[in-house]
């Protein structure tokens, strides 16, 4: 059994929160859904086709979820297993899923997409079809349904960056409603007593608040002077307004009296009224208020961090995630210290005590395992790859532009793949290697720099989705590459493809050991013999999707770090 090392830091971003039919609380994190079970938060989504979760919702006994790149999955057993749904051909990511208030009877569900409009299902979310009649723009940022639908009217409101659409018929057709053309709508909330008062509130990005007393057909400005409003919530005639990192409460009868009920230091991601409680999520926490915002209680002990790199250097263990910083342990994983928390980490490489970090705010290097940091250069483009090879620091931009550090600074290099999407850059067997996605031929390509000839050599090419392949160096085969469910090894006759997993559970990590490969196939840990690839053994594993394995250490999707038994 793999031993779990000390938890690095609880918390992490929570996008939303909702209750199941049984009243169980579900947290929606980018890593998946978390459910509170036996005093701890457990990840519900394992082996699902998303590399990041966007949204989720419960309707009756079914839980729905969606994420990048696109698609909707559903679970009818509380999240133990997930089924794909049939979606009308569309490619945009789904950003919101909502159910009809009469779901038990009408089985209607709606989903908003960021680019393809609105999807509608009439069979409880099994099949989804585009329902865009009347929409004029298709990047939907918010989709809400009225808390009650009656026999005649089934009101829904969809908001795009520039317009507000109302549907009186459960999303069958939409009509653009008159609204301030200059304003950019941001959030909508229906009155809990909508059946009687037909009232809806709508906020804009420039801090205005509008009210409609006729189900969203006409709007009237009721307040302004707020900062950017990102969310609205209504409980008992009190409107809660989210302004980036604070929550302001106003009585719906008088918007001039404003009270700050919460001031956080972190951006707020959602504010929901669940029964009579307010649930607020931020990029690093969840808090609940049962007294209309007068006091707030933090929800502890969940872990929604995403560490995708694990590196070992000398006695140090380094774990890093794009939005969760770089962490160091020098005592074998018993304690962790934060080395870096500025900006989003795009690429990372470690060599002895040096750490190279490409982030969205520039390129940094630490010569002393994170004790001090130096800015190594500022380049307009985002560097998606960092590698130390050939005694040089190499950088690769998201558009395939290659830079090499020399005495004079960063020198741009000519490369045949410039203009293509660069997914990764690594040093493999001493050679700098780039991973590029060629959209024209839908191919993943690996290019290797040959210093003797000073040329880029196309090392590997395979038709695939634009997902980063996993690469490991091996003493027997040289290099092994994992793409989707297959492992590729370089034989004399060329690349040999070995199917080790299904496309539903793509390979997410490969590590070469003495006589076998250790493979993380999403939520499964496999041992594949190097001499006989048909010998595949599924190792005992608790099922959290594996993101990286290196030097007997493994990180999983919800920020857990494990060490191999032999260590």
């Amino acid at each position, binding site marked *: 059994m793999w031993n779990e090392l000390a938890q690095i830091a609880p918390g992490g971003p929570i996008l939303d929160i909702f209750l199941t039919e049984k009243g169980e609380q579900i947290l929606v994190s980018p890593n998946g859904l978390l459910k509170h079970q036996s005093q701890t938060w457990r990840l519900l989504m394992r082996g699902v086709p998303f590399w990041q979760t966007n949204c989720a919702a419960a309707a009756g006994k079914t839980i729905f979820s969606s994420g990048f790149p696109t698609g909707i999955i559903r679970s009818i057993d509380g999240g133990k297993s997930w089924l794909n749904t*049939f979606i009308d*051909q569309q490619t945009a990511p789904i950003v919101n899923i909502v159910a009809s208030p009469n779901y038990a009877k009408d089985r209607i569900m709606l989903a908003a997409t960021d680019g393809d409009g609105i999807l509608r299902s009439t069979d409880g979310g099994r*099949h989804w079809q585009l329902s865009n*009649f*009347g929409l004029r723009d298709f990047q939907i940022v918010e989709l809400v349904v009225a808390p009650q639908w009656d026999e005649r009217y089934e009101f829904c409101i969809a908001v795009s960056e520039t317009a507000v659409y109302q549907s*009186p018929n459960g999303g*069958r057709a939409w*009509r653009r409603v008159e609204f301030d053309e200059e304003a950019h709508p941001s959030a909508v909330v229906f009155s809990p007593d909508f059946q009687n008062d037909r009232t809806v509130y709508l906020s804009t990005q420039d801090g205005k608040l509008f009210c409609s007393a006729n189900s969203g057909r006409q709007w009237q400005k009721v307040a302004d002077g707020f900062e950017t409003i990102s969310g609205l919530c209504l409980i008992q005639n009190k409107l809660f307004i989210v302004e980036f990192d604070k929550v302001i409460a106003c009585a719906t009868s008088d918007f001039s009296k404003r009270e700050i009920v919460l001031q956080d230091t972190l951006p707020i991601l959602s504010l929901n009224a669940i029964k009579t409680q307010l649930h607020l999520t931020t990029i690093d926490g969840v808090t609940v208020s049962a007294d209309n915002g007068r006091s707030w209680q933090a929800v502890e002990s969940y872990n929604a961090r995403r560490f995708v790199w694990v590196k070992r250097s000398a006695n140090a263990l380094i774990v890093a995630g794009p939005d969760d910083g770089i962490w160091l342990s020098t005592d074998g994983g018993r304690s962790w210290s934060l080395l870096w928390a500025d900006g989003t980490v795009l690429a990372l490489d470690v060599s002895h005590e040096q750490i190279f970090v490409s982030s969205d705010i520039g390129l940094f290097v630490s010569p002393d395992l994170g004790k001090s940091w130096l800015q190594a250069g500022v380049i307009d483009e985002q560097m998606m790859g960092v590698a130390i090879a050939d005694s040089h620091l190499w950088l690769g931009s998201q558009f395939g532009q290659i830079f090499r550090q020399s005495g004079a600074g960063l020198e741009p290099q000519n490369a045949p793949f410039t203009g293509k999407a660069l997914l990764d850059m690594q040093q493999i067997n001493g050679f700098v290697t780039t991973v590029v996605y060629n959209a024209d031929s839908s191919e993943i390509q690996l290019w290797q720099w040959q210093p003797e000839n000073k040329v880029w050599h196309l090392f590997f090419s395979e*038709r695939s989705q634009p997902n980063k392949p996993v690469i490991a160096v091996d003493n027997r085969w040289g290099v092994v590459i994992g793409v989707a469910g297959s492992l590729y090894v370089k034989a004399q006759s060329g690349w040999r493809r070995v199917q080790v997993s299904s496309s539903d559970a793509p390979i997410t990590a490969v590590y070469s050991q003495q006589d076998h490969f250790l493979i993380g196939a999403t939520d499964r840990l496999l041992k594949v013999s190097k001499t006989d690839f048909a010998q595949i053994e599924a190792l005992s594993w608790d099922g959290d999707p594996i993101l990286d394995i290196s030097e007997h250490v493994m990180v999983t999707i919800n920020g857990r770090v494990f060490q191999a038994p032999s260590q």
Partner: protein
Amino acid sequence: MNNHGVVSQPDSAYFLRLGFNQLADVLALTLGPTKGSVLNFSTRNERPEMLNDAATIARRIIQIPDRRQDVGAMLLRQLVWQMHQQVGDGGAITAVIAKHTLDEATRMVAAGGIAPLIQNGIKKASAQAVDAIKAMSQPADNEMALAAVAEAVTGHQKLSWILGEMFDILGKYAFITVEKYMSSYLERIYLEGGRWSGKLISPYLITAPATQKAIQQDCYVALFAGKLHEHEDVAPLLSIIHQQKTKNLYLLAYDITSDALNALVSAHQHQKNGINIVAGTLNIGGQQGVRELEDLAILTGATVLGDDLGRPLSSIKASELGRVKRAEADKENLYAIQGGGDPKRIREEIQSLQTLLDHTPPDDEDIGIIHQRLARFSGSVGILQVGAISQTERDVLEQKAKHATRALSATLMEGYVPGGGVAYLHAAKAIDLDSAENDDERMGMLALKNALSAPFIQLLTNAGIYAPEVKMADVMAKGNGTVYHIIEEDFVSAVDAGIVDATKMTRMALETAVSGAVMALSVDVTVLKKKPRTNKDYTP
């Protein structure tokens, strides 16, 4: 009676009025929410038919036994059917007003009035009443009013809600297809973009197995008014698409078979350099097919090619391709959603079709096609799905829905007035008898003024309400917006209770009834044609 002959006054007028009234009395029973039904049982072999709309009843009555009376019945039948074709409703009201106008006018003639002058009086009063109806009219700018008009036509609440919603969303040029289902069902679908009757050329192009549709996004559009058989016919087009950044193609032609079809399917299935293809064939060819393709060309910005146009598909240039955001095809229909056509050109086409539609007689056979084309360009296409367990119920629902769609179109054009016959009462009040130029004309005006109370009285009579004249006096006293609610037996606001009628229907029923009554009044002689031979009489 002779088999054929000439009937003169006074018999001609007498028998004509008898026949006119005979049919009007049957149709009058169907007026109002408590309307009765007519059971039509033509032959032993056919199942009985339950009818409750005047137009269908009138259509089923093709003859009455006495041929002298038949002339009058057929005259009224024609009026009722004309109303049905133009606005889909108002047949019973037309019959009731026509009958009472004729009765009143005949009474005036019997009292010594001069028929032509009485006719003038009726026409003058009619013009004044129509003006009053127009002045009363409210624009139908909300779903509630539209649903109320639909309910007045159908008597079916949920169907009316849905139709009200559909017309509110789709607008006055809405093109609504009614589909029947074999279970209790009521649903509506709004079609984004345009739909053409046609089919997908091969199941190998299907990309959405759940719906059996071929769907592609961001396609280049090629339109060909002809048949494609050879590989060479489509090869240049495929080559052009290969050179584009987005390799998605939507190809429509009259027919695609043989090597051309194989070339398209293999291009679609090609592993490395495939083109995503949706290809369909139209169900119609010839001149109408060209027109369909031309509509697609306007919507997508493509150019229609064709062998007859001197342009084989092999001569296509990249600049002749159109664009569409989403192309779909299945075994019955072809769809083009969000075409990349020139918006100005599309607006011009919509305006031209609107003008054409407004100037086309309602019974013209092309009106449906014009309406459909207009709806495609303006994105106003909807499908109403109605279902019932029995065939009879399904047919009734379908008919009701079709009548209501015409009535709602009319309502959106001219607005609505208080229903329940009240609009006619107020219109009658507006008839100024003092404007008559002589006593005979005044008699004619009075005849129509009296006749206009008939719809209200008939509605209350059908509901078995005692002393309708008293209710009539009360409703007039309460003002313009008040109507009598027959079910609740109370005076209510017309708009709040949803008791409203389309202005166009109200106006046209009056004009049609007056026209019929004046025509009937002017008849001096009827000529009966020789009775056609029946099988029984036939001897070789």
